[in-house]
């Protein structure tokens, strides 16, 4: 319950953060992505942005791997909040800049943590899948019978042909001599059979 309330508060904070972005977008003539980068870096450094400062920030980001990861995380978070704003079509003004900066920092750390949490579960899922695959492979091995001889299809075909031809010969004999050799009984026909 408490966690849900915190999440709701965070969402409210992110929503309130959005109008500030809009204002800057309108002011500047740069493209959207660049504007986002500017805003993000300014907030994280907690200083007013200038062209020289922007240049130095970008250089530091490109050098450090961890920083670039955090940057991408932050960017994704910002995009998410922006999407929410577009969906809700809500706006508010009159937010104190200093308070907003503090809230923004909190949001940033929250985004990073949530991303880490999300990354953890796929790993465990992967482990589960691996285990399942191992089980299935072992089952397959168990099902496979040992190496034993099997006659070729041609050999089996020859056997059935020979046995079936024996059947035909017996039928001819029975018809010719009207005697059932299987049941050892005489049948109606040309010959008369007496039992000895």
């Amino acid at each position, binding site marked *: 319950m408490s966690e849900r309330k915190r999440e709701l508060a965070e969402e409210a904070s992110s929503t309130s953060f959005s109008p500030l972005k809009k204002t800057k977008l309108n002011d500047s003539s740069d493209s959207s992505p660049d504007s986002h980068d500017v805003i993000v870096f300014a907030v994280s450094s907690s200083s007013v942005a200038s062209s020289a400062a922007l240049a130095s920030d970008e250089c530091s980001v490109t050098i450090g791997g961890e920083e670039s990861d955090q940057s991408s995380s932050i960017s994704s978070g910002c995009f998410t909040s922006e999407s929410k704003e577009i969906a809700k079509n809500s706006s508010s003004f009159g937010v104190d800049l200093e308070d907003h900066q503090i809230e923004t920092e909190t949001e940033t750390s929250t985004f990073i943590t949530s991303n880490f949490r999300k990354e953890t579960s796929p790993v465990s899922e992967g482990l589960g899948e691996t285990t399942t695959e191992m089980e299935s492979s072992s089952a397959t091995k168990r099902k496979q019978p040992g190496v034993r001889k099997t006659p070729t299809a041609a050999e089996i075909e020859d056997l*059935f042909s020979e*046995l079936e031809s024996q059947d035909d010969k017996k039928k001819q004999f029975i018809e010719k001599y009207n005697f059932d050799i299987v049941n*050892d009984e005489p049948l109606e026909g040309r010959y008369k059979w007496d039992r000895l």
Partner: protein
Amino acid sequence: MAEFMEPNLVSNFDDEKSNSVDTRSIFQMGFPLESEEIVREMIEKERQHSPRDDYLKRLRNGDLDFNVRIQALGWIWKACEELQFGPLCICLAMNYLDRFLSVHDLPSGKAWTVQLLAVACLSLAAKIEETNVPELMQLQVGAPMFVFEAKSVQRMELLVLNVLRWRLRAVTPCSYVRYFLSKINGYDQEPHSRLVTRSLQVIASTTKGIDFLEFRASEIAAAVALSVSGEHFDKFSFSSSFSSLEKERVKKIGEMIERDGSSSSSQTPNNTVLQFKSRRYSHSLSTASVSSSLTSLS
């Protein structure tokens, strides 16, 4: 006929598995013993479910390859042990095998053909007699030298069915045993399930030798019932129940059973060889239950 016989076979099967009092009371209420009329009808038909008359003679004089039957028999017994099939299934499988071999020669020099025939006969018997039948690939247990695809076994099954004229619900000694036990012991009710179980095991063991092939199914059943009941053949008066049976032949079977094996007393030239072979594989193939059963008889 078949419809009436089936419950009896089922009850025989259940007897073999369970000795509980509840089961016995259920049998007493649910499954009547075979009537006199049914038994006479079975005796008339049993010859149609037997190998051809000259089968035993040809086995003894070498016309038929004696080892073919031994090889098939060996695998069938081993598979039945591993798959937990009962003596009823063994008797049926051996019945199909003998009937087929008595009218069809397998090509010589190809051992795998014997194995394929054995698998087909056991599969058919299991489908008639058992409630849990594994798939054809899983049926081929006991580490056989040859293994066959399901379609090959099915084709051999069809061939066996045609040769046996689709008469699979065969009259075997197992069909009579409960009837004879009830007559010998004077029971109006179900004979004790332990007697039935032991009788079925003894009947199954008679399939190991060829010498019992000389006798009819009803004669073997009567002799086994007398042996298991502890009756002496000389003292027992053959009542109306046994009027259709020849006393001397039944007595001879009893003597063969008491000798604890399938030893032959025939006068054939191959007598020594046959006896040696019979004894050797009889020992190697006997199960604990059959051995203990035969021991208790002697």
